């Protein structure tokens, strides 16, 4: 008889009992994991990474790699310093690194992503408790910081052809280039953009869609970003609600604000809206966990983006809108708690 219990004398049974694991139900877990989710996001970003190198050259790759490496480095260092377990193996720092680089122009100096990563990881992420506890999207906060500190570096966009040294983004053209008087600008960023924009022409919609137009290295290829987004939605890593509500409400709000319909596709497909809506507004830590809350969050970001673009001094507006909405998350969640099954009101 090879049955342990049947043949085991008393002493052995006791041993068996000490070996049995006793724990709370459930006794099985899904095969989802934090790593798997983060890995999926990285996989989703790969097409856009390849695209950025294709369109903007080897400097794009350099920026991305420096950004990833410095994000991981700062995460490890600060966790060591705080005497916390080092969690770079959860891959989340890699994503932050990629997204910071994606928000840079191809001409950015090599140290810019390092400054961005340091700020994103140390100040925005780890000071607030690390993964899942930060209340602002680290990559976006870093972008805002870089834009304020080094406006010229952050807004000198190169075109996708090697012969073009500096070029205006479609949004800058729409904002500054198309108006006869070229409104006086208060910031260096808008000044740079405005100078570049004067006399420039809008790219064709096709070029805009595939990403062959000036802009931050990771934001231009709508096609490649959408391929990754579709993957994330199919893998149920992100919920469609935030991006759909976000892009939809940006569109509607721009119409309400009187933007001419021929410019609407340019607004949707440039200025990092697609990148922001699918990859940054959906950041778990900084968006609502409730289903209704996600729709409200998306709508809020959309309205803000449209207002900043039409009435503000900046041509884009995606990052500030998302950052502003990040702050409202606890409030949104409070008012959008799901109705409990059988709740009597």
């Amino acid at each position, binding site marked *: 008889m090879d049955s342990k219990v049947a043949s085991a004398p008393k002493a052995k049974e006791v041993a068996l009992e000490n070996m049995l694991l006793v724990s709370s139900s459930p006794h099985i*877990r*899904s095969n*989802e*994991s934090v790593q798997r989710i983060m890995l999926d996001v990285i996989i989703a970003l790969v097409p856009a990474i390849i695209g950025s190198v294709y369109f903007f050259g080897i400097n794009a790759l350099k920026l991305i790699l420096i950004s990833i490496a410095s994000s991981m480095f700062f995460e490890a260092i600060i966790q060591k310093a705080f005497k916390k377990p080092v969690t770079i193996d959860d891959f989340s720092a890699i994503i932050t690194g990629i997204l910071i680089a994606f928000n840079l122009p191809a001409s950015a100096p090599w140290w810019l992503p390092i400054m961005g990563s340091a700020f994103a990881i140390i100040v925005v992420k780890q000071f607030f408790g690390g993964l899942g506890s930060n209340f602002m999207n680290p990559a976006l906060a870093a972008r805002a910081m870089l834009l304020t500190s080094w406006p010229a570096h952050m807004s000198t966009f190169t075109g996708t052809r090697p012969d073009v040294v500096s070029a205006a983004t479609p949004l800058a053209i729409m904002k500054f280039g198309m108006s006869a008087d070229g409104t006086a600008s208060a910031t260096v960023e808008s000044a740079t953009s405005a100078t570049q924009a004067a006399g420039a022409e809008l790219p064709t919609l096709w070029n805009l869609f595939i990403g062959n137009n000036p802009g931050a290295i990771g934001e231009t290829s709508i096609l490649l970003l959408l391929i990754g987004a579709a993957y994330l939605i199919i893998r149920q890593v992100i919920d469609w609600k935030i991006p759909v509500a976000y892009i939809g409400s940006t569109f509607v709000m721009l119409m309400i604000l009187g933007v001419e319909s021929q410019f609407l596709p340019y607004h949707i497909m440039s200025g990092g809206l697609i990148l922001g809506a699918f990859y940054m507004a959906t950041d*778990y830590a900084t968006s609502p966990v409730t289903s209704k809350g*996600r729709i409200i969050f998306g709508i809020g970001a959309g309205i803000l983006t449209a207002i900043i673009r039409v009435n503000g001094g900046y041509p884009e507006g995606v990052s500030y809108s998302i950052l502003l909405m990040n702050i409202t998350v606890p409030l949104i969640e409070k008012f959008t708690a799901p109705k*409990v099954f059988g709740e009597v009101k």
Partner: protein
Amino acid sequence: MKLRDLTFKGGVAVSDNKGLTNHLSIESAEEPSIVMIPLHQHTGAPCEPVVKAGDEVKVGQVIGQSQAFVSAPVHSSVSGTVKEIASMAIPTGPTVDCVVIESDGKNTMDKSIRPNGKLEDLSPEELIQIIKEAGITGMGGAGFPAHVKFSPPAEKKIDTILIDGAECEPYLTADHRLMVEEPEKIIYGLKVIMKAVGVDRGIIGIETNKPDAIKALKEASKDEENISIATLKVKYPQGDEKRLIDAILGRQVPSGGLPMDVGAVVSNISTTRAIAEAVMEGKPLYERVVTVTGRGIKNPKNLVVKIGTPFKDVIQQCGGFNEGAPGKIVMGGPMMGISQYSIDVPVIKGTGGILVMTEEEAKPEPMHPCIRCGKCIEVCPVHLQPLYLSSYSLKGDFDRAEALHALDCVECGACSFQCPSKRPLVESIRLAKREIIANRKKTN
């Protein structure tokens, strides 16, 4: 009324692992040489023993009883001699008094066991009395005495009896096999309940992963005008009684309420079959079908096991453990079952399964901080926010957990199952519930 592919909002897809046993016919277990029958294996008052050491008992003879309304008598499952009455560990946790009986192997039936006559000739009161005397309790796990469930206060108008054939727990196939092998008994049991409660509509809900059960019950009920079969989407926890009522009848049992508040009474398949046998044959609840399963056991089986049989004997009859030590032994299914310290505990009325997990399967996965993915909210069938309930509970802030309806949690485990960070969600919510209830008792 739509009766196909019904479901509820929330829930998780779990690989059901029923293939280990869902094709295996129910077999009788070997006669145990000794049984330990707990005097308290139901919700309600414990029984007092009515036998003492040295007494001779027969199969089906009452050995424990209580005067309380919410209680259920306990019967001997063997014929033989009472050895002792002693406090022992049972699979649901604390130790309780058990009647230990040594079997004489003869299986002599008690003379009280005889058919009760035709269903047409029995009044609702008589039926309830038969169910009560047979010691029938909810066999899906909660162990609530059936006769209490079937005697709702007069102001609660019941219009439908639902039979839970979802068997949504992975691995378990006892109910599935009963539906396939004894569909007539299930229909008969449903008719008994309908008559006892005074209702003329009965619906059996079955998940679509059991097409043979659906077919068998449709066939067995084809001449019954008042009985229909509803098919349910395969989703956990479809068999939770409030989710079942929502899926089939479209009614939500109010928070803190009972099924009878929305005119429904729910009974599980094993229970319904036990009720049928109690009326047809006069057989009290002294044995039940147990699915012995999992990758840690040699020959998984669906076995009819006598109440009081030690787990050890049952495991041995299934060929013992597979190579390597077992990692975890669970009474019930993997989602809500209770892990066991020992295999010396007896099978009780609520033991639907014995699941033996391998060491590999039982290995706890490392926990990560909550990443706020919101998946626990998506899957919670009660529409709670497990991440917050859990974090308040872990911080000891039970008031806020209560305000977020911690007490509505049915402990189904869907949230913990889905959480990518492997957080101890149910565990901490269960703790909060205990604290909240204890506080209420204190303040009252």
